[in-house]
């Protein structure tokens, strides 16, 4: 056990810092306030290209596909440093964090050569087509179907809760290829060109008023058979691999971002003269402790992944922790801000441009997206603790 960075990790971190210092865009905050989602996206793609050209994209990916062959720990260091710098997100994050690792594990050589470099450069943006209106928590109940017609699959169906759907060039789509098989069988993962005819993308408006997610509609969309990832009818395992990456890696970036939120709340509590209130101190102390423990759990998990080679079901505690922490934290922020907590962007008396009212609402989605808290507890109960399936 050694929680110090090794000499080479330290050197790596210093390189990252130096590069970010020189290259991280200063005008991101302004961009966020002023432009539309589409305009922001142009900005973000330029940023991802800069990261790619700097050699920082796909750090832990094999060099033959444009990666850097770095350690997973270096990947985590990079993620933390960017979060610490407050650099903009990568618009190709789903490709980088979910689709790429899935292709590296399950893809053919040809697929890797075709898709991975463009994921890294941001030339191609990816989304995930997993959930459906009637297959949310019960993902295996999905009904979008793909029928083999010569050397193409013909896809029909609907997906929902697709982040970046509107901006995507490609989609990792889970479809049913054998309607006669059991629920978890007969599924297949396809790589679908979002520019194909008869793919329709609609915006979903969230309770925050924003449109972060999309619905996708497929009507007789033709997908070449070579775009299957893994084996036909073995899509459940491929999809599960993607979900475990999601749970394992989302936490890393999230907790650094939360630390910035926390520090901002401390500043506010100071300026609102609440920082000496013993009740507030107790709650902030608790919140900080939990945040730090999230970081420690994440470090332990990464060490475990490095040892075992892949993420396991215990990643669910990360998902539960960050989502529920943020809900408690947003409530605490609201208590500290008092009546100011409810003011939205544009209100003359608003603090931090309405980030706190937005954050309060947005946090409700945390225990639903990427697998509800209930599903995560089922996973721990069944797959980690060996209890009988409860659903």
């Amino acid at each position, binding site marked *: 056990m050694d929680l110090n960075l090794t000499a080479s990790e330290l050197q790596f971190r210093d390189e990252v810092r130096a590069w970010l210092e020189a290259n991280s865009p200063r005008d991101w905050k302004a961009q966020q306030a002023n432009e539309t989602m589409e305009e922001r996206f142009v900005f973000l793609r330029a940023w991802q290209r800069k990261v790619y050209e700097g050699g920082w994209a796909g750090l832990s990916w094999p060099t033959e596909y444009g990666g850097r062959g770095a350690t997973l720990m270096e990947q985590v260091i990079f993620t933390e440093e960017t979060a610490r710098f407050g650099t903009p997100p990568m618009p190709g994050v789903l490709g980088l964090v979910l689709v790429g690792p899935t292709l590296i594990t399950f893809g053919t050589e040809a697929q890797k050569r075709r898709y991975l470099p463009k994921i890294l450069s941001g030339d191609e943006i990816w989304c995930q087509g997993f*959930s459906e209106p*009637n*297959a*949310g*928590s*019960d993902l295996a*109940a999905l009904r979008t179907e793909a029928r083999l017609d010569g050397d193409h699959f013909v896809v029909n169906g609907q997906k*929902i*809760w697709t982040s970046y759907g509107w901006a995507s060039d490609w989609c990792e789509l889970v479809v049913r290829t054998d309607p006669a098989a059991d629920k978890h069988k007969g599924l297949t993962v396809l790589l679908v060109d979002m520019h194909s005819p008869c793919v329709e993308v609609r915006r*979903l*408006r*969230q*309770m925050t*008023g924003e449109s972060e997610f999309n619905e996708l509609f497929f009507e007789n969309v033709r997908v070449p058979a070579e775009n299957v990832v893994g084996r036909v009818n073995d899509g459940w395992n491929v999809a599960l691999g993607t979900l475990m990456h999601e749970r394992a890696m989302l936490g890393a970036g999230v907790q650094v971002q939360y630390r910035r939120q926390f520090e901002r709340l401390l500043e506010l509590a100071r300026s609102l003269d609440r920082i000496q209130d013993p*009740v507030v101190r107790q709650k902030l102390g608790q919140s900080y402790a939990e945040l730090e423990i999230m970081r420690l759990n994440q470090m332990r998990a990464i060490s475990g992944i490095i040892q075992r080679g892949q993420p396991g079901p215990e990643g669910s505690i990360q998902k539960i922790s960050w989502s529920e922490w943020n*809900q408690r934290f947003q*409530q605490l922020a*609201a*208590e500290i801000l*008092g*009546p*100011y*907590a*409810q*003011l*939205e*962007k*544009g*209100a*003359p*008396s*608003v603090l931090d441009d309405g980030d706190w*009212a937005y954050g*309060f*609402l947005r946090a*409700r*989605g945390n*225990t*639903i*997206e990427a697998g*509800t*808290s*209930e599903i995560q*507890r089922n996973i721990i109960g069944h797959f980690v603790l060996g209890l009988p399936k*409860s*659903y």
Partner: protein
Amino acid sequence: MQFGLTETQQMLQKSAREFFPAECPMADVRRLMETPTAHDPALWRKIAAQGWTGIIFPEQYDGLGLGMVELAALIEEMGRALVPGPFLSTLLAAAAMDAAASETQKQKYLASICRGDSTATLALLEATARWDLDAVEMQASGSTLTGRKLFVPDAGAADFILCAARSGADLALFLVDSKAMGLTLTPEPALDATRKLYQVGFDHVAAELVASGATARAALERALAVATAALVAEMAGGMQRVLEISVAYAKTRKQFGKPIGQFQAVQHQCADMFLLTESSRSAAYYAAWALQENVPEARLAVSIAKSYASDAYREVGNRGIQIHGGMGFTWENDLHLYYRRAKASEIAFGDAAFHRERIARLVMDRA
């Protein structure tokens, strides 16, 4: 002893339960949210036609002369239907007038409210955003007000604004016409769009003195207590609706081949929502009754109810959204409208922590 509505009270409740969803369905709530004031004069006239704008005020001022329990039964249904507009702020201002205004002022202003001809609000908070009356710092100069009030509810829909200020060291209550020279209303977009908040600027605004000193303080305390008890009843109604929507969803939405309400993780959340809702309702009606009867523990009852419901409504909302999964997170689903109202209600008249400290003062420091 009988903790239940009388037959007359039940009839009132029943007619309110039919009236509001019919006269102000959710489509109207959503439409009004998008208007500048969320106030629908046509709806207001219908409410006034029922006499409800004057429900607790004396008949001599054209009120119905009913009690706080009747008000609770009425406003619980308004909360269930999420009725937008200035009912609560007008009630707050009217209760302050009722407690402190002169006979002439009551005949002029309170009676006008009771008849449904005027709406009103109270300007209390300042930049410190503190709910205790000692936080009022704005200084009146004679009958002229200069300064800034924050978080004034429904000011844009109000015909007149009561304003708490200092007259020397004394607390005083002034009445300002909303069209007065020097008055500036700036909307402050906030979570609950059904009940708009405003910043109100006073630049040498002519005001009419309503009361000062102990009378003003007592009137403000009484009016805040009345409005808080009413708000808690309204919150209980909102919780009830969120519970109903969520239970209905849990019965029909299927995952893993079963209605999700069959899974204990969901079913027990519904049970908790029921417990929180019923408990808030008990507390709300007790507070209303205690104020109505002026029993010694009335202020304590109000703080108990508000501290409990402030957390309960939010928690009911949390669980309701969670049970709905992704659907609960959409704009189209009504849950977030209740959730926004829950948050605004939690804040209004002091949050749970504020009232818990008041309970502590009333229970622990009296010995």
